[in-house]
C-alpha cells in the first residue's frame, strides 16, 4: 500500500505539472504575442483552463479511423506515457525522495526514453495516414540521431562525476566552494562542461521535439504529424507525455549540470523540502526557456536538422568529451 | 509602337492583310483568323522590333448576337514597352483555337479557364481540363445563354 502511494506521487506530480505547463505555455505565448491568453475559467488569469480542457477531452468520442491498425493505434499513447513515467523513477526529486536509487540510473533513463521513439512510430504507422507516416519517419530519424549527442554530453558529465547513480551525482554537488561563492555544480567544475551543456540542451530540445526542432508534428507542414488522427483523451495523453518528457529531460539537465536539488546558496535554504523546490525551479526554468524559444523561432527543415546533428553536434561532442577527459586527468 | 504601327509593320514585313478595329471608346485591336493565329503569335513574340514577351491576359468571350466565340490576347513587351490587343473569333458550333501555351507558359491556365467558362477548345494544349468548376460540371457558365444545372451529384445548386 505504502509502495503504491509512493509510486503515485510522481504520477500526481506529472499530471499536476502538465496541467500547469500547458497553462504556462499558453500564458507565455500569449504575453510574448501581446495577448492575454485564457482569462476566464477559474478566475485569476484562467488558471483552471487546462483542467476544463482535460474534462472536455475525457468526454470526447474516441475516434479510431476505420483502416487503422486498432491495437497499435489504441496502445501507442499509453506506451509513450508509460515510458516517460517509468523514467521518472530514477530522478532524485529531493535528498529524501527518489523512486529507485539504482546504480545505473543514467543508463536506465536513457534506455527507457528510447521507448518514446517506438511509441511515436507505432502511433504514426497505425494511423494509416500519410501525414502521420511522414511525421513518424521524421520522428524516428530525429530521435535516434539526437540520442547520440545527448549520450555523449551525458557521458562527459559522468567522466567528471564518476557515478551513474543520479542521487550520488546530486549529493556531490551540494555546498558552494568554487571561487568561494559559486555552488559546487558540475557546470562550474569544468569549463568544457559548458560546451557539453549547450549540446545537451540543443539535443533535449530536439528529443522532446520542440521548436526549432518540432518536425514530427510540424503543424504548418504535416498538419499534426504523428498525432493527426488522434482525438479526445488519447490525444490528451500524447500531450501529457510530451510535456512530461520535456520536464524529464529538463530535470535530467538540472541534475547533471546544475546540482539537482542542491541549493545555490550552500547549506542555506537546503533540506528535503527546499531541495524539491530548488529542483523544480531549475527544471521549470529550462521548460520556460524552451517555451520562449518556441514562440520566437521558425523551424528547421528535416535535412538541416540532420545536418546539424551529424556534422556539428556529434563531432563537437566527441571532441569535447576527449577534452573533458584530458582536463580531468590534468587537474 | 501603337496598334496602327504594329499592324502596318506586320503587313509590310510579312505580307499580311491585318486591319485594326476601333471602337467608340477605349482600346483598338486587330482580329486574326484562327488558321494563322499561331504564326502571328510566334512572329509577335520573336520579331526583333516587336518582342511581345509578356502575355498579360487571355480572355474568352461569347458574342451571342453573332453566334461566335472569341479569344482576346493582351500582349505587352517589357523590352519595347508597347501593347497590342489581338482577337480571334470562331463559330460557336466548332470553337477550336490553336493554343499558344508553348509560346507563353502563362497561357496554360488562362486557356483552361477560357475552356472551362466559355467553352473554347484550344488545339495543342497539354492538359485541357476544367479549372474552376468541377470536371463533371455541365455547360460553360460565362456563355450568355448558360443555364445552371439544377443539381450536381444529387446536391441542389439552389435554383
Amino acid at each position, binding site marked *: 500500500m505504502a509502495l503504491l502511494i509512493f509510486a503515485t506521487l510522481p504520477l500526481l506530480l506529472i499530471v499536476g505539472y502538465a496541467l500547469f505547463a500547458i497553462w504556462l505555455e499558453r500564458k507565455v505565448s500569449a504575453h510574448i504575442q501581446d495577448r492575454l491568453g485564457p482569462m476566464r475559467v477559474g478566475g485569476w488569469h484562467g488558471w483552471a483552463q487546462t483542467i476544463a480542457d482535460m474534462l472536455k477531452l475525457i468526454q470526447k468520442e474516441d475516434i479510431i479511423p476505420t483502416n487503422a491498425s486498432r491495437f497499435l493505434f489504441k496502445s501507442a499513447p499509453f506506451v509513450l506515457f508509460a515510458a516517460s513515467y517509468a523514467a521518472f523513477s530514477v530522478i532524485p526529486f529531493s535528498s529524501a525522495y527518489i523512486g529507485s536509487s539504482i546504480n545505473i540510473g543514467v543508463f536506465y533513463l536513457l534506455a527507457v526514453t528510447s521507448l518514446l521513439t517506438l511509441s511515436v512510430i507505432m502511433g504514426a504507422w497505425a494511423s494509416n495516414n500519410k501525414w502521420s507516416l511522414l511525421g513518424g519517419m521524421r520522428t524516428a530519424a530525429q530521435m535516434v540521431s539526437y540520442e547520440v549527442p545527448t549520450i555523449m554530453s551525458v557521458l562527459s558529465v559522468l567522466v567528471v562525476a564518476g557515478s551513474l547513480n543520479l542521487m550520488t551525482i546530486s549529493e556531490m554537488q551540494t555546498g558552494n566552494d568554487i571561487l568561494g561563492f559559486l555552488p559546487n555544480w558540475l557546470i562550474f567544475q569544468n569549463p568544457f562542461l559548458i560546451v557539453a551543456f549547450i549540446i545537451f540542451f540543443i539535443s533535449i530540445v530536439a528529443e522532446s521535439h520542440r521548436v*526549432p526542432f518540432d518536425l514530427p508534428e510540424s503543424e504548418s507542414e504535416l498538419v499534426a504529424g504523428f498525432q493527426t488522427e488522434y482525438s479526445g483523451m488519447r490525444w490528451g495523453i500524447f500531450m501529457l507525455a510530451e510535456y512530461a518528457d520535456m520536464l524529464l529531460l529538463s530535470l535530467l539537465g538540472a541534475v547533471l549540470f546544475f546540482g539537482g536539488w542542491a541549493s545555490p546558496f550552500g547549506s542555506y535554504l537546503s533540506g528535503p523540502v527546499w531541495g524539491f523546490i530548488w529542483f523544480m525551479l531549475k527544471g521549470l526554468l529550462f521548460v520556460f526557456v524552451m517555451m520562449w524559444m518556441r*514562440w520566437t523561432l*521558425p523551424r528547421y527543415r528535416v535535412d538541416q536538422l540532420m545536418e546539424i546533428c551529424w556534422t556539428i553536434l556529434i563531432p563537437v561532442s566527441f571532441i569535447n568529451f576527449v577534452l573533458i577527459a584530458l582536463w580531468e586527468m590534468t587537474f | 509602337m501603337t496598334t496602327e504601327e504594329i499592324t502596318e509593320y506586320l503587313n509590310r514585313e510579312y505580307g499580311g492583310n491585318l486591319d485594326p478595329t476601333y471602337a467608340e*471608346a477605349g482600346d483598338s485591336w486587330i482580329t486574326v483568323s484562327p488558321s494563322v493565329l499561331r504564326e502571328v503569335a510566334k512572329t509577335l513574340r520573336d520579331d526583333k522590333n516587336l518582342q511581345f514577351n509578356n502575355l*498579360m491576359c487571355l480572355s474568352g468571350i461569347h458574342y451571342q448576337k453573332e453566334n461566335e466565340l472569341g479569344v482576346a490576347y493582351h500582349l505587352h513587351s517589357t523590352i519595347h514597352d508597347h501593347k497590342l*490587343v489581338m482577337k480571334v473569333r470562331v463559330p460557336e458550333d466548332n470553337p477550336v483555337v490553336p493554343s499558344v501555351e508553348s509560346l507563353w507558359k502563362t497561357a496554360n491556365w488562362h486557356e483552361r479557364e477560357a475552356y472551362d467558362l466559355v467553352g473554347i477548345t484550344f488545339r495543342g494544349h497539354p492538359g485541357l481540363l476544367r479549372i474552376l468548376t468541377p470536371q463533371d460540371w455541365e455547360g460553360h457558365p460565362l456563355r450568355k445563354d448558360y443555364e445552371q444545372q439544377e443539381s450536381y451529384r444529387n446536391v441542389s445548386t439552389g435554383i
Partner: protein
Amino acid sequence: MAPVTSPQPAAIENRTMTINMGPQHPSTHGVLRLEVTVDGEVVTKVKPDIGYLHRCFEKYAESLGDYAKVVPYTDRIDYVSALHQEMGYVIAVEKLLELEVPERVEYMRVILAELQRIASHLLGIGTFGLDLGAFTPFLYCFIERENILRILEKVSGARLLYNYLCVGGLMRDIPTDFTSDTWEFVTSFRPKIKELNDLLTTNSIFIDRTANIGVLPAEVALNYSASGPMLRGSGVSWDLRKNDPYSIYDRFEFNVPVGQGEMGTVGDCWDRYIVRVREMEESLKIIEQALDQMPGEGDVKEAVPRRIRSKEGEVYVRTETPRGELGYYIISEKSGPYRIKARTPSFVNLSILPAISKGALVADLVAIVGSIDIVLGGVDR
C-alpha cells in the same frame, strides 16, 4: 584472383506516394488543394487544384448591368487588398467613360492604396513566417495591420471590404483627422519594421529555410507573366507604378526594390520576402509625399456621374496590387457591361508553382507557396 563482385542488392520496390495537401491544410492559405507526388520527402510533382472558392465574379458582374454595382463585388476578389481591386476597376471604368477625377480624390486613392499595400504585405509576411513555424511575427504583423484597418474603418466605415472608391470619386467625404491619424501611423510603423527584421528577416534559421529555395529565374518569370514581388524577387525591376504609371504615381519618388540574391540565388523565397519588406518602406515614402501634397479642400463627389452612360468599346487596364498586376478587361455595350474579366495576379503567380517546386522537400513546398503569397479569393474569383 577472381574479380570481386558486389552482392546484388535485393530489389527494393521504389514507389512514390501521392498526398493531398489541402483543401483543408494549415498552410495552403485558404482552400487550395495541391496534389503532391512525393518520393520520400522529395516532391516530384505538384498539381494545383483550384476553384474551391469560385464565386462567379465575372458572371455576376455581367448580369448586374450597371457599372456602379460591380464595385462591392470587386472587393471580394482579393479580400486582403480590397482597395486595390476597387481601384483597378474604377480606373478602368473611368478610362472607358473618359472621366476626369479631382486631384484630392487621386491623392486620397493613392494614400489609401499604399496603406492597403502595407497591410497586405504585413499579412503576406506574417503568414509566410507562420508557414515556416514562426508564430509570433505573424501576430506582431497583425497588430500593425490593425492600426491600418482602424484608419481605413474611420474613412470608409468597413474594415475589410471597403467599397470606398466609386466611379469618378469616393463614396464618402474624408474625415478631418485622417491626415493626423496617418502621420501617426507612419511614424510609429518605421521602428516596427526594424523589429520585424530582427525577429524574422535576419534570423539564421529563417534564412536557412528560405535562401536557395524555389528559385524562379527571370526569364521563366516573364514567360509565365509573373508580376509583383514574385517578378521583382527574380531581379526584374518592373513596377507598374513606375513603368506604366496610372493615377498620379508619376508624381512621387520611390525606389523599386528587387531581389539581389543577398542570401542565396536571385529569385529565391528570401528575395521574394525581402522585396515585400522593402516595399513597405517605399510605401511609407509615398504616403508621406502624398500627405504633404494633398490639397486640403475639394469635393470628392464632384466628378461622380449621376447615371453612368455606357459607351461601346473595350479597355484593358492594369494596376499594381500588392500581389502584382491586376488587369480588368471590360467590354462595354450601350446597355452596360458585356464582359468583365479580372486577370488576378494570384491566379497567374500560382500557375508557376509546379515549375519551381520540383525537387523540393515537402517543407520547402510550404515555404514556396507562402512566398508566392496567394489569396485564394484572387485565384478563384
